[in-house]
């Protein structure tokens, strides 16, 4: 018998195993409901409470704001996805700004060193916001791969107010993943941090030390 068979056999003979599914009442989470304005206010407040820079802006003006922020922060090279609406708008706005844009259009093996040591910032879209916890629901794609929101020291994230939900439960249900989830789904709630040295809060450990959210209408 394999380890698998042994383990399953031991579990199966236990009294009460395979019992009818217990009732889980998700009411306490479903009851968390806010108006759209409250959701945005809560998300912004919670994100700021963990050192996130949030800029309330619009669909029309965020690319210009991004340009200003990149210049002000001294971002020399910004990695983005030129083929997505967010990436395309940013590329256009940054043209001639002195900020170089580059696409994550190769497998990581081809440019590991460069991504880790020579990219100043990454730009991604955000699928949804979560008001309850002040989180960004980010789904990496072939155009916006997993390391884009993780390795560069600054992460710019573009989120529309229209997609701020109440809870993670609501977002997951709305995505309707069924049995098939994307390879990776992330909740991001602030820049990377640690309190492992005598509980002193320090921002910027292995992930970005700046999370900049551009909140559009």
């Amino acid at each position, binding site marked *: 018998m394999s380890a698998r068979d042994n*383990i399953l056999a031991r579990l199966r003979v236990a009294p*009460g195993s395979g019992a009818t599914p217990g009732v889980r009442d998700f009411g*306490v989470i479903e009851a968390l409901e806010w108006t759209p304005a409250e959701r945005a206010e809560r998300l912004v407040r919670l994100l700021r409470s963990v050192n996130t820079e949030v800029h309330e802006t619009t669909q029309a003006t965020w690319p210009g704001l991004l340009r200003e922020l990149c210049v002000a922060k001294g971002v020399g090279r910004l990695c983005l996805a030129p083929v997505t609406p967010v990436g395309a708008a940013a590329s256009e706005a940054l043209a001639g700004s002195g900020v170089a844009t580059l696409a994550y259009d190769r497998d990581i093996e081809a440019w590991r060193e460069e991504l880790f040591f020579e990219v100043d910032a990454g730009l991604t879209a955000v699928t949804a916001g979560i008001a309850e916890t002040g989180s960004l629901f980010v789904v990496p794609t072939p155009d916006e791969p997993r390391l884009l929101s993780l390795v560069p020291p600054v992460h710019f994230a573009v989120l529309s107010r229209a997609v701020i939900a109440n809870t993670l439960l609501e977002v*997951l249900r709305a995505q309707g993943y069924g049995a098939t989830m994307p390879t990776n789904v992330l909740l991001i709630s602030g820049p990377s941090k640690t309190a492992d*040295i*005598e509980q002193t809060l320090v921002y910027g450990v*292995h992930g970005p030390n700046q999370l900049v959210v551009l909140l559009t209408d």
Partner: protein
Amino acid sequence: MNRPATEFKERIQRALDDPQIRTNFRRAMDGLMAKRAAMFPDADELEQLRDLGAAVRRNALARLPGLLEKLEANCQRNGIIVHWAESVAEANAIVLDIVRKHGGKSVIKGKSMVSEEMELNHHLEAHGIEALESDLGEYIVQLAGETPSHIIMPAIHKNTRQIAELFVEKLDGVEFTEDAEALTAIARGLLRRKFLDADVGLSGVNFAVAETGTLCLIENEGNGRLTTTAPDVHVAVTGIEKVVETLDDITPLLSLLPRSATGQGITTYVNMISGPRKQGERDGPREVHLVLLDNGRTTSYVDPELRTTLQCIRCGACMNHCPVYARIGGHAYGTVYPGPIGEILSPQLLGCDEAGALPGASTLCGACGEVCPVRIPIPKMLVRLRREAVTRDAASPVKDAGAQRSTSEALIWKAWARIHAVPGLYSLVTRTASAFKKMPVVGPLKAWSSVRTPPRVAGRTLHQRMAARGSTK
């Protein structure tokens, strides 16, 4: 007392004698308790959430064998390779084999208590493989050649000065600084390169979702995401109890865990992984392995009461609120899992010979049971395991039941029972005791009274006084 019990007592004494340990833990635990309380302002909502958290975990356990099969099938469909291990030795062999097949030189690790349970680092190092911890707390503990003293905050026993000294001693070219930011930057700089060079990334799992074949990991630093994304191979190790049925189940557990643990509304990152890099994707590991470890869990599972231990989501709230843990710290327990959860889990994982004395390290104040987000009846379990430790019973599901039994203690309790069962004897004993007027300060009473004022024995017994008042015959 057997050897492990004696050593436990010695470690407790050493910890109590160390003012630094007491200061470090006291400060940290007070802070954590206050932060947790602030995060649950609405008591009703908290209780409802705990009901839901407990229901989610109980549902998963009730259907554990079926859900594990479902998890396996869905992980495999997603391209995750699933391994099963009955023992720590089997799990270590599986991991070693995977590492050897992929370069076999270095492993970068995210935080994983199951890998501590496996003593995986030792095992890999014994086979010439570097296993480097990347969570800052774990990194500090590894540099010091120690083990974690808390399941969430591994280096909580050290203060900044101690960490600063450690860095100067162990790391090349590091100057002494007590600035936490500077110390963090040093570790970040050193580890960055390691993430690039490691053959394999190894992590734990917080929840595994059966319906989708998804592994959920939570963390603040980003090292967990790097560990599971940057190297070519990702190996996740987890206990078989970590499964939940549906994606819906994640939200309540996420709502409870960080708030109970560190008083944070949510961790910086929640990382849900459902497979290796797919065609067209630019990064992520090309292989993902899941190792499901039993190591005694199926034995606990068989007993309905012991099974509740498997509900644990490893938040650490029970240790943060434990008056004993706050005074002796995590290392005194001598086991991977300290504090109240460790006191009930360790005898089940290791047996009563090795860990049967642990449930004794409790005042049974009940704080752990009150804060546990998934309603594990820890105080009740402590009493149950104290009984297991001193009751020889071949049919007991707990390994080495009765190993802590002491003949003299058993005799004393036998006499105690007898005295209370026979009225004439009872009256004789109480009258004799009151004639002595003082408690005899010998044996355990001597140690007890060395730091307390021994109570004075009343001159007359209660029966005598009542008889004098004429209210008894």
